[in-house]
């Protein structure tokens, strides 16, 4: 697929959904030189050599922004590479992805940041923003050189998917980071309570004889997080969360005006621990699939905005690793290519979110939380755009993913909606292949 050098583009006949401008209507979008030039431009303003894209029947929205995907390179290229991950992101409608620092070596030095940035630029996939380690070596003992990482281009700090067990360290880091005005992201889990849990601790884990991850393991960490955010006035993002307890605490803390944001993974919005009865490792994901009441609470929390963003939770692992017995099989699966459709199928179709709110949770809010450009089609913004066909009905098949990882808890499920074009800086970097299209 040859990328056209021509960055002027007119997207016509689509339904423009941009919560940053309170827009949800039929409109034309003009892109000039890689930036959004105008919405509903006058004909005279449209350059003659402009490419045209017919978005009839489709949604035109700011490209999706992900708050934390594992790209596994350097060190675990068998699971994913920056290239495969950034292209998987495009296929899922993402134009920006924050990548986790959990590589080998981990990203706790400017050199690490630079490596990822260079690889990402070469890959010409979604934009990759680097999350730097919060602690040196991700060991959870000492702060990493956060200032130097910030200088090198890190946009946030986190040891995710590892949790931050050292309360004092988290507090100090929150204080310290105020001078850089960059967010700290914590994936909340108390390691001692999580122990060797493989799935949600509940009735199903009891029957199956599998070690459970109790909700307390997450709730206690969330309680710690919000309290420290309040005490330090630091910028903290808690996520992904998966429990009723987490939602409750976040709601209360927000109502007191404290600046904490939260996110959730799509698998926690649609699947429950019942799936583990098959013992299939594709359901061994993190956060774990919890029981139905947690799923319902999370859905409502996303609907009412208590949970600000939906993040993919992309945690790719090679086929060989996932084929092992459930205990040895690592947590994780591919998610970048299914998050959009899962949100459409389980949140929009269930009338929990309208399109505007959905785009907010997937694009505008995460961009704001991360403090990066994106999530908006305001004239002057970079033309990072996703064109979505809401009428694509498709069955998830891991073998067709652009990600190296074929395991997904949504594998075999029917979903509605799919990105047909993903545009980065005015360049169409992804088109849905015709043979994969299934119009209802």
């Amino acid at each position: 697929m040859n990328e056209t050098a021509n960055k002027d583009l007119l997207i016509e006949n689509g339904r423009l959904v941009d919560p940053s401008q309170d827009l949800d209507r039929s409109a034309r979008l003009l892109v000039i030189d890689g930036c959004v030039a105008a919405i509903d431009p006058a004909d005279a303003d449209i350059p003659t050599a402009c490419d045209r894209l017919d978005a009839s029947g489709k949604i035109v929205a700011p490209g999706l922004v992900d708050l934390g995907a594992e790209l596994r390179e350097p060190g675990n290229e068998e699971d994913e590479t920056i290239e495969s991950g950034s292209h998987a992101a495009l296929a899922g409608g993402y134009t920006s992805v924050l990548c986790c620092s959990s590589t080998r070596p981990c990203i706790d030095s400017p050199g690490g940041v630079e490596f990822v940035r260079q690889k990402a630029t070469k890959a010409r996939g979604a934009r990759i923003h680097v999350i730097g380690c919060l602690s040196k070596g991700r060991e959870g003992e000492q702060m990493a050189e956060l200032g130097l990482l910030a200088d090198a281009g890190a946009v946030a700090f986190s040891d995710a998917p590892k949790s931050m067990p050292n309360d004092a360290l988290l507090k100090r880091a929150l204080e310290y980071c105020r001078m850089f005005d960059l967010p700290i992201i914590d994936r909340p889990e108390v390691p001692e309570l999580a122990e060797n849990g493989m799935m949600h601790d509940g009735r199903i884990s009891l029957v199956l004889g599998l070690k459970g991850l109790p909700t307390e393991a997450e709730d206690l960490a969330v309680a710690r997080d919000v309290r420290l955010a309040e005490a330090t006035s630091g910028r903290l993002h808690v996520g992904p969360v998966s429990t009723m307890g987490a939602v409750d605490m976040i709601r209360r803390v927000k109502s007191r005006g404290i600046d904490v944001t939260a996110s959730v993974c799509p698998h926690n919005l649609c699947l429950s621990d019942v799936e583990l009865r098959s013992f299939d490792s594709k359901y061994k994901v993190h956060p774990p699939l919890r029981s139905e009441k947690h799923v319902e609470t999370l859905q409502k929390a996303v609907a009412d905005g208590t949970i600000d963003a939906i993040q993919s939770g992309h945690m790719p692992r090679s086929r060989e690793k996932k084929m092992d017995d459930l205990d040895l099989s690592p947590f994780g699966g591919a998610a970048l290519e299914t998050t959009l459709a899962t949100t459409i199928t389980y949140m929009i179709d269930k009338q929990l979110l309208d399109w505007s709110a959905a785009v907010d949770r997937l694009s505008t809010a995460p961009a704001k939380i991360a403090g990066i450009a994106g999530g908006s089609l305001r004239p002057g913004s970079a033309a990072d755009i996703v064109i979505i066909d809401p009428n694509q009905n498709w069955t998830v098949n891991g073998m067709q993913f652009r990600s190296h990882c074929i395991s997904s808890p949504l594998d075999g499920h029917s979903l509605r909606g799919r990105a047909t074009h993903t545009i980065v800086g005015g360049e169409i970097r992804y088109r849905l292949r015709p043979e994969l299209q299934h119009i209802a």
Partner: protein
Amino acid sequence: MSNAVQPDLTFPKNWHRRHLLDLESLSAEEISTILDVAQQLKEMTQGCRNKISLLAGKTCANLFFENSTRTRNSFSLAAKRLGADTVEFSSAGSSVAKGETFIDTAKTIEAMGVEWVVTRHGTPGTPHLLSRELDCCVLNAGDGPHGHPTQGLLDILTIRQHRGDIKGLTVALVGDIAHSRTARSNIWGLSKLGAHVIICGPPTLVSPRWTELGFEVAHHLDDILPRCDVLNLLRIQFERQRARLFPSVHEYAALYAMNGARMRKSKDDILIMAPGPINRGVEITPEVADGPHSVILEQVNNGIAVRMAALWLLSGANERAKANAKSSPAD
């Protein structure tokens, strides 16, 4: 088709399963079928002592990823009593230790032309995974704390031999339920056949969630003894991790050991069972283990009977399935 060498053993019409993975998924009727066949085979082999050639020419592979002497030998003897050959694989010092995945190990064994793979593994769901990957019959000999279907079946067979119908009996499972595959298999098998199951042990080993599933939970053994027709005393395991769940062996024995004093509080015809190996002095005292109410050794013999039944039934279903696949629609 006829799998019967002995004329008075007909293959049950209602049996279609090629794998025995757990008792949860079996119907009461299927469980009764296995027990009936086990009883018949026990008699045909004079108490599992003599050989008949029901499964001659077939090979049973034991694929054990966890140490086991009695279960492994029990399956082995069951196969041999019916005339089959056996072959042993264990994970120590084998290709698994060299890094081969367990699925590859199982497929290699299948490629050697075995009819059944009997597998024991520390992680729940492993036999289920194998049953999806292999064409031969898979038998679960224990998958972590999840299930041990043949153990559940031999326990129920033993009760049936003494009491006839399972329905209406009160059976208490005592001990480390949280980690016990024997407990789980018994819970499902017994409840499907209409027994009243009581789950008894300290709260750290017996979750209150069992009541949400409709089972009676008791923490004091003395309180339930007068009502019990059967006690199944699970072995307490003392690995470091488990040890954090109760303070000491000494305390456990004081609260839960079946001893002479507790026998006097029990029904006159109570059956005392244990999956073995037993820790004399911990779950059970010698006077009870060797006493007139104990059926522990009968359980062992019934284990061979139940495993013979399982091997024969699964193999028969496998053959039937293959024959149906080949036969023309006109048949």
